[in-house]
């Protein structure tokens, strides 16, 4: 392989990292504030994909617009799910078995609802843009991947700004850093948790709608992406939003480049192997490593 042959995978990895970041950031928000490992994230992504599909099939709404509409719709859905199910969970500063089981059960419910409504067959969104390719010298970029990347990056940047500048963002970060001190300082932890769950769900739905532009999907959709989201947030340090971006880029680069050197049949093992390595070597993720370096400096 020549150097030019590595350009294509490099571009592909960067584009992939964008969507990886968008699909993982929702999990980080929920975990950071509520210490809930949201197993239903996969189901919510799947619902996001079907949401975009229905808008496209019934009302001919472009999936790009559908993904943007998914943000407020899934935010409200997340608020409703929190009000109905999540708020009854006992409070804890560690992930609890009850929260894991609840979210796993909710994922199963979502899967079965999707099976009842849309059946088992794979669906896909097919627009004139789906197979359009931009040729830049030796590098070819699928237009749809570029659009998904831009949307994903913009959404993550906006979330980052919201978390830095708004009162809600400050409350979220305060709860992540020290929940007790945050409550003493007047942060309404229940309301912040509810909005955080809404934001996490919104990003899951949004990511699902974006993924539907790239892949075909069925009620089982999201399972593989859930594992990747775990790897990314563990890489990122579980509660760090900038860590998610770094984690997404690392995973995308490792997945894309490792496949060039190992047989393709080993591809599914790469994410698992990376998760094990990170848990052993960097249990606090990249954010933990950087924090340590700054302290030493």
């Amino acid at each position: 392989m020549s150097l030019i042959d590595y350009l294509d995978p490099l571009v592909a990895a960067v584009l992939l990292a964008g969507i990886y970041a968008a699909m993982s950031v929702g999990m980080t928000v929920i975990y950071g504030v509520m210490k809930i490992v949201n197993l239903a994230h996969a189901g919510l992504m799947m619902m996001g994909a079907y949401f975009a599909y229905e808008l496209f099939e019934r009302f001919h709404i472009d999936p790009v617009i559908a993904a943007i509409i998914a943000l407020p719709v899934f935010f409200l859905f997340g608020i409703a799910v929190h009000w109905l199910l999540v708020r009854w969970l006992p409070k804890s500063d560690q992930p609890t078995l009850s929260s894991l089981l609840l979210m796993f059960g909710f994922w199963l419910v979502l899967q079965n609802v999707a099976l009842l409504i849309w059946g088992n067959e794979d669906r896909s969104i097919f627009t004139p843009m789906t197979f359009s390719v931009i040729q830049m010298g030796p590098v070819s970029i699928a237009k749809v991947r570029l659009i998904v990347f831009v949307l994903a990056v913009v959404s993550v940047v906006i979330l980052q700004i919201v978390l830095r500048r708004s009162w809600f963002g400050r409350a979220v970060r305060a709860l992540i850093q020290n929940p007790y001190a945050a409550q003493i300082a007047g942060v309404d932890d229940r309301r912040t948790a509810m909005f955080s769950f809404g934001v996490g769900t919104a990003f899951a739905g949004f990511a699902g709608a974006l993924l539907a532009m790239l892949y075909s999907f069925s009620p089982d959709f999201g399972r593989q992406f859930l594992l990747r989201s775990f790897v990314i947030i563990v890489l990122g340090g579980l509660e760090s939003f900038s860590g998610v971006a770094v984690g997404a880029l690392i995973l995308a680069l490792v997945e894309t480049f490792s496949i060039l050197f190992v047989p393709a049949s080993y591809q599914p093992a790469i994410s698992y192997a990376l998760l094990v390595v990170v848990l052993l070597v960097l249990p606090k993720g990249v954010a933990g490593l950087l924090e340590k370096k700054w302290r030493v400096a």
Partner: protein
Amino acid sequence: MMRNSVWFGCRRWRAALLLVAGCVALFAAVIPAAAQAGDSIILGVVMPISGREGKPGQYQKEGIELAIKQINDKGGITIKGKKYAIKEVFYDDGSDSAKSATLAERAMSSDNATAVIGGYSTALGEAESVMPDRYKTPWITPGAGATSIFSHGYEYVFGALSPIALLGSTTAEFLGSLVDQGKLKKGLKIALAVENTDHGIDYVNGIQDWINKHPGYFTVVFNEKFELGGTDYSGLLQKVKAARADIFLSDAHLQDYITMHRQYLQSGMHHQMISYGARGPEADARKALGDGINYIFAGIWWSGKLPYPQVKQFISDYKQFTGHDPDSWYAATAYDATRLLAQAIQQAGSTDKTKIRDALRKAELKDSLLPGTVLKFGANGQAGYPFVIVQNQPGGKVEIVYPKNGATAEPIAPTP
């Protein structure tokens, strides 16, 4: 206190009695069903109608049920002058290998099925294939073609699909014929990306065998396996691109074919010829990828374009039975497997499973829908009729392009 414990003791006994009564009632409900085996022949059917193989599995189930309906409408199977209706006991294995084996076992043991038809896809077929000899029950797979299933010396295992190695060699032979016609140049490079199963291994072996026997036609410059059920094949396709081959041959299942070809189109690659093995003309693929599937060719076990009168009749009956046209080859092999089994039971003149097995070894379905019009099993239990090569052509058409004497259109090569 004492009264309470006596009361609880009584309650426990009552609960136990109720449980026993419930079990007795359950058995009573089940026993008449087993007794019906006296006036009907129980046929176990284990197919995936959910999960990732759900669509082809559903088509195979429909083919089996159409055959059963037609046989029963004619009075059933005649054994020593007495008519027996076929009674289907169906199980959905959910595209899960472990479940598939367990359900085949249940059909052969608890249901005491006279024979079982099951195993769509090599993975599910391989899982089921260990059961027939254990329970001395004839088993026919209409959807698994890997030779490994038939190489263990099993005596009750039969397959209605021609071997995958033959699919590979027919694919190479077709490409070779394009070279002979001057449509492709000699010495082209082939990239192979196949599923990591015996199906994929057989496919590669078939292609390699033909290439070895016909030096100078093609060279294989890339050969890799991938896991079925993936969502992202961009890394694999990146390697295919870097191999700079002229022809891209994959061996994939329906969902993998759709996912991989979608990413193939998005990668901007172009090859002179593309194939996904036995997948290509399916309606789901056209629905998902539109004209993106044009010019893909596939080696398949049956086509609705075969020029036999029984094929026309089958298409009409199938449409009336299911409300839709047969999609690719799936229903036809299952339909013929069921008819051949019914014929063998009749020839055996008994519901004795060993006699049916012996009859299956000799049986020949002479009005078969499949290429060559005769379906019979070879010495290892697997059928061996020829493949037809079909190509997706513009306008949503699927034409037979090889062998030449059965072709309904000229192959379009190289891909424009």
